[in-house]
């Protein structure tokens, strides 16, 4: 599926692109465009089937069957066509714009939520050569893009001019902002360990003869945990979903949104979730490296390892959602500021001492 992405045709063109006449970069731009469309299509596909998986997993956890009706031409296929049906339904629903809302911002909010969620994917490497924008400041770019997620939510809450939406967006903004700090420090730990901001370099720094013991989850174990849990909070997933809190503020910031406008928020949330999963795999679980380093065939690095690890974390997202009760708001803030922040600060020091002391096998 990714075959044509691998043969990096455009890198020789890339160096010359700014000085070439029209022909040179027309080919280059077309190539980039095709790759971007493939990445976006894959993310959307994963989004669609994560919603399906979410319903199936929740059903299994609650001893139900889940969606199993929607099929193609009478073939039900376990309801695999469900996401398609959902999408079509969302498009054909009315977009209600409340009378007292600020119309322009109301329309802009879902677009602003979706834009950064997708933009972050530009620097994600899928294996050693399959990366759209191999920039040196990859990790910095990711953290900058994820910090923009809060805009869609704040603007949506304010533009709706509804009390529930406003409360939801306020809670959400404070929560996202709080967990971003622990997330940032966790990323700093990975950086200290790898010594590079480039995501591909970070993965390659984790390779070694001990296989999965060489990955950063082991020396940075507390950060691995903090990062993933902060990821739950950043994406407003349970147990941190006071933003939506059905029982308290109905649906939070998107209570006034309907049809495809609502679905856009939904896509943004799931895209962020997939992004957190793939980032956790890249930063802590060695990305496309095989856990069985050194053994023939299964020891080879491959994109399938990366996809497998990402799927594992996505499943964890769903599993956690259907297992834990919701946190109270003061507990969320306490966890972010009084538990995670001190742990991350201490671990930055520990990691840098390990790096300076060249602790084997990771930092020798």
């Amino acid at each position, binding site marked *: 599926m990714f075959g044509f992405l691998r043969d990096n045709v455009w890198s020789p063109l*890339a*160096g010359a*692109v*700014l000085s070439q006449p029209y022909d040179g*970069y027309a080919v280059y731009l077309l190539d980039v465009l095709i790759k971007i469309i493939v990445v976006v299509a894959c993310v959307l596909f994963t989004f669609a089937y994560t919603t399906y998986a979410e319903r199936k997993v929740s059903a299994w956890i609650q001893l139900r069957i889940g969606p199993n009706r929607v099929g193609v031409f009478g073939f039900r296929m376990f309801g695999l066509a469900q996401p398609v049906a959902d999408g079509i339904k969302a498009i054909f629903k009315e977009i209600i714009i409340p009378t007292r809302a*600020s119309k*322009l*911002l109301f329309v802009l909010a879902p677009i602003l939520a979706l834009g950064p969620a997708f933009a972050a994917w530009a620097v994600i490497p899928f294996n050693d050569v399959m990366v759209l924008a191999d*920039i*040196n*400041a990859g990790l*910095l*770019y990711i*953290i*900058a893009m994820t*910090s*923009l997620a*809060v*805009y869609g939510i*704040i*603007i949506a809450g*304010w533009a709706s001019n509804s009390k529930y939406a406003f409360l939801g967006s*306020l809670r959400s*903004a404070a929560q996202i*902002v709080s967990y*971003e700090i622990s997330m940032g420090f966790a990323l700093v730990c990975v950086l200290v360990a790898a010594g590079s*901001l480039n995501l591909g370099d970070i993965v390659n720094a984790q390779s070694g003869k001990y296989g999965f013991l060489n990955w950063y989850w082991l020396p940075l174990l507390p950060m691995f945990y903090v990062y993933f849990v902060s990821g739950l909070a950043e994406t407003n997933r349970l147990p941190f979903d006071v933003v939506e809190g059905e029982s308290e503020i109905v649906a939070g910031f998107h209570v006034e949104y309907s049809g495809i406008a609502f679905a856009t928020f939904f896509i943004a949330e799931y895209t962020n979730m997939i992004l957190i999963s793939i980032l956790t795999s890249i930063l802590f679980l060695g990305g496309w490296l095989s856990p069985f380093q050194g053994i023939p065939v299964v020891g080879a690095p491959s994109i399938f390892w990366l996809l497998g690890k990402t799927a594992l974390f996505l499943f964890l997202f769903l599993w956690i959602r259907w297992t834990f009760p919701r946190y109270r708001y*003061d507990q969320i803030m*306490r966890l972010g500021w009084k538990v995670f922040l001190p742990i991350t600060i201490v671990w930055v020091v520990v990691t840098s001492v390990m790096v300076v002391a060249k602790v084997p096998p990771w930092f020798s």
Partner: protein
Amino acid sequence: MIEQTVFYFFAGLLLLAATMVITVKNPVHAALSLVLAFFCSAAIWLLLQAEFLAIVLILVYVGAVMVLFLFVIMMLDINLTVLREGFSRFLPVGISVAVLMAVSMGLVITSGRFTTGGNYEALKHAADYSNTRELGIALFTDYLYPFEIAGAILLLAIVAAISLTLRKRPDTKTPKVEKQVAVHRAGHVRLVRMEAEKE
């Protein structure tokens, strides 16, 4: 060619956004125009090869400072008519500040320090050049002292922010987590054995 097109696009957008910041009536729209202005300047910094600074501009200003601005503007419920009342009264002060700023900006721009000296092409770096790395080496060798002063200023900011905004209200209750955790069953639950009641 592409570079120039991108530059003129973002420079034009930057001017437009900056004008909108001071002309639009709604303060939330003004703040969002400022966000757009930051984006455009980040793009222009990027064109100047300042990779790290460009992304940090987005991270710190758009991702953090403007969030605070929006918070304040959205939640303070500013009454625009009251704000407009003093317009003519403050006009002389405003104009004199504007003139002062225009003069100082003019002095800086004409001072000759704002030219690239004609060797802009020499600024271009190879693809593997890491802006962040160069900056780190400069910051942690030659500029250690200013760096530590920045740390002290941040400490000052924390203390100032807390002493300005934190008001303890007497009627609020805070859960004492350490007490909650230390609760034992014995102090709170009593098991009572009762005879089954008969008709």
